[in-house]
């Protein structure tokens, strides 16, 4: 273990030669994932994800607002990822880190492209009143691959959302909220992200830890849905990789996605 800290790259090479990683995983193996929903009672929906030692919590708050003029019949979903100095000594206190902003943008794109929630469902009264769902994610402990964990947390929290029934009075035009009747949204699709990284230009490893992220270059994130469609593929530069390797990643992502969807269904029931 000492050597792993002093000469991480060299000791990693000896491990990878045997097709195993220092934590006992195979190259394409992901870490154990724990999902817990509804643990924050002040939020309208919440989920806590533990991906190995990486921990992300997501809380969704619903508010009523006036829709934008461009989309009068559509609600709004706003994700926001926070990676403060609390979660790792890598982050310094101050404005949101670059990485957190990248993840926020990624989640935003993901929600828009795969319509987990049809924003038309969030409309209470066209042009007058819509729901806005603020999805705040906080990384509590950062041990690599915050992206996969935050996608899981976000989707699970959205599935967990229950909002009160709102009726608009015909005469006065004022909304009336009935806190007694709460209903869940029909979420469409269960996207699941799988991240890989390239070590030394030749080895592809899945679900990197923080130590592995430090010595590797170029993440590839593949998001699949329940019909094994690809929804999003992101490759952020780094070392060039052969096309065949890319296929391998996609294949593994599909497998991993179906495993994770079992988890979604298990907590939902």
């Amino acid at each position: 273990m000492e050597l792993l800290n002093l000469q991480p790259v060299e000791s990693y090479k000896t491990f990878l030669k045997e097709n195993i990683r220092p934590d006992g995983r195979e190259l394409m193996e992901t870490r154990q994932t724990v999902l817990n929903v509804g643990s924050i009672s002040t939020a309208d929906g919440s989920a806590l994800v533990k991906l190995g030692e990486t921990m992300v919590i997501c809380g969704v708050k619903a508010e009523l607002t006036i829709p934008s003029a461009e989309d009068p019949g559509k609600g709004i979903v706003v994700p926001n990822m926070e990676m403060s100095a609390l979660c790792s000594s890598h982050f310094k206190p101050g404005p949101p880190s670059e990485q957190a902003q990248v993840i926020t943008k990624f989640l935003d794109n993901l929600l828009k492209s795969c319509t987990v929630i049809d924003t038309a469902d969030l409309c209470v009264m066209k042009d007058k009143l819509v729901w806005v769902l603020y999805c705040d994610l906080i990384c509590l402990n950062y041990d690599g691959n915050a992206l996969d964990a935050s996608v899981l947390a976000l989707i699970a929290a959205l599935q967990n959302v229950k909002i009160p029934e709102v009726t608009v009075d015909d005469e006065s035009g004022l909304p009336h909220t009935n806190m007694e009747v709460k209903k869940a949204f029909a979420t469409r699709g269960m996207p699941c992200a799988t991240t890989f990284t390239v070590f030394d230009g030749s080895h592809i490893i899945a679900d990197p830890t923080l130590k592995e992220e430090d010595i590797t270059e170029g993440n590839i994130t593949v998001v699949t849905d329940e019909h094994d469609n690809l929804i999003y593929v992101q490759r952020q530069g780094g070392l060039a990789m052969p096309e065949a390797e890319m296929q391998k990643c996609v294949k593994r992502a599909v497998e991993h996605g179906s495993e994770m969807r079992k988890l979604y269904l298990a907590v939902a029931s």
Partner: protein
Amino acid sequence: MAGLELLSDQGYRIDGRKPDELRRIRCKLGVFTQADGSAYIEQGNTKVLAAIYGPREADQNMRNQICHDKCFLNCEYTQATFSTAERKHRSRGDRKGQDMSTHIKQTFEATIQTSLYPRSQIDIYLQVLQADGSNYCACINAASLALIDAGIAMKDYVCACSASLTKGKPVIDINHVEESSDCAELSVAILPKLGQIVYSELNGRLHANELPDVIDAVVRGCKDLFVVMDRTVREHLEETATTFTHS
């Protein structure tokens, strides 16, 4: 206020507790791997996470705070946007958060043996996940456990508890409903073994003659908390010790 009776005629509070009863406490040490020390505490519906980094070399942009004979503390209190009934986005360094951070920092400056760590920095990060009253107290208790987990030398445990006075009776460990009523609120942090008070804050009006009763009740509350915290620390240590001997 009609209909909202903080203490019923039978002597029970809104959530069914007796006046001198704490809420259910659940705590855990060593919840994170990245931090040098961490703890989680649940006092009723108030849920707080604490992470400690350090003692470590002082950060570049905090150079001006370095002391040659002791360490300095950096404390950051954040409240999750989804922690309260109404969503509030608190930007970093808002007044309430700053205020809380300073109070927590001062409490621990009085407790940590800072002279043992010259020229270093200790970071205390607090994250409130769910707020239901007595946030300060839950933060102090969580940070105290996290500092113990980090192995930082302290004079004693720090245990904090809040109290209020309704119908002439002191009620301890107040929840959000009791906190938002117009009663006085007293928060106290004590060093239970030394029997010293390191922090106290009183908000709202209280007759001077009634103060001793309230302090008495709140100190008893702190001591009850200490029993729970001490037990958690001992259990945690036993657990860690067994994993060490087996491996």
